[in-house]
């Protein structure tokens, strides 16, 4: 269940992101992740742990949306791309070459955040300035 630790890392990043908007607390609707097929992450488990972790926090109700990025290899023999599979021992079907270069599939990325900010409070007259003028 390393998805728990991954969620903790994700929350740390989200907290840092929130700081950029301080003092306002953004209301987050969705967090978009890109997770490569050639990683040790189970997207369903990540969504589950996220749902538990954000309960009662400023992120409560925010949805975790995971886009799976397929594994794509490049055959260094003919430079063509292919989908490596365990059944084919990850070799390229074109030239029977081992999996040398991975083009995509190793992603573990926080892509973007959908959110809204509360309306700023109506501006109030600056009392300190008024006081200074009166003095």
């Amino acid at each position, binding site marked *: 269940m390393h998805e728990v630790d991954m969620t903790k890392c994700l929350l740390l990043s989200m907290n840092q992101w929130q700081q950029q908007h301080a003092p306002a607390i953004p209301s987050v609707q969705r967090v978009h992740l890109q997770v490569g097929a050639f990683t040790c992450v189970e997207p369903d488990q990540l969504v589950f742990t996220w749902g538990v972790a954000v309960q009662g926090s400023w992120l409560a109700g925010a949805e975790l949306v995971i886009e799976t990025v397929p594994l794509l290899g490049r055959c260094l023999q003919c430079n063509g791309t292919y989908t490596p599979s365990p059944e084919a021992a990850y070799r390229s079907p074109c030239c029977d070459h*081992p999996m040398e270069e991975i083009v995509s599939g190793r992603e573990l*990325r*926080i*892509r973007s955040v959908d959110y809204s900010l509360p309306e700023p409070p109506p501006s109030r007259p600056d009392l300190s300035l008024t006081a200074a003028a009166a003095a």
Partner: protein
Amino acid sequence: MHMPLEDTLGLNLLAANQHQAQHNREHFDAWQLLCLNVMSSPGAGKTSLLERSLAALAPEFAMAVLEGDMTTLLDAERLEAVGVPVVPITTGRACHLDAAMVRGGLRILGQRLDPASLDLLWVENVGNLVCPAEFEIGEHRKVALLSVTEGDDKPLKYPVMFREADCVVITKVDLLPYLPVQVERIEAHIHQVNPRCAVFQVSASTGAGLEAWHGWLRQQRSAVSSAAAALAVESLEAAAPEPVLVP
């Protein structure tokens, strides 16, 4: 009325861990030591290999072990018997070490000795072929162990671990005569997911193959220390005052 907004982050999911790992690596480089992250499934023989390698390399290298896969104190006693300091890392029930846990282990190690006096720091990870593969700890090299009793399909079933490894040590090769396993197939499968990976066949029981594995370690050690030395020279040059041009 709330305005819908979108921020593009493009940040690694494990950025928090990577940040700490980078911090650890900066320390390792400043101490000019080689840090190895040793990973395998439980029972592949990490402690047995360490026991042999620590004994063999102790005359030439100052070493220490951060022990993340310790179920009993017996492991630590076995390793300490060689005269190498061992620091247990409390992992709770975690399935892997992360960079912050290693940082905690380094603090304890620092109370016992000056890390700058070390040449080699071994980190024995939790026995697991999945989780440790994704969590950097600041290591210079990842070493994966695979025992011949685990079967030849493991590199294909746990490809991320064997892809990420800089070196795979195939252990327990003394058992090959008794197993329906071809070590050539294990090696071929490792190279199919990681063509440039160094692979060694060893037996901690008989000592077979250990010399080649130790040769690789010596190479990595000198590669890392010369890289660290080059970095030190660079920073010295950067710190040096600008030459004054006399007209």
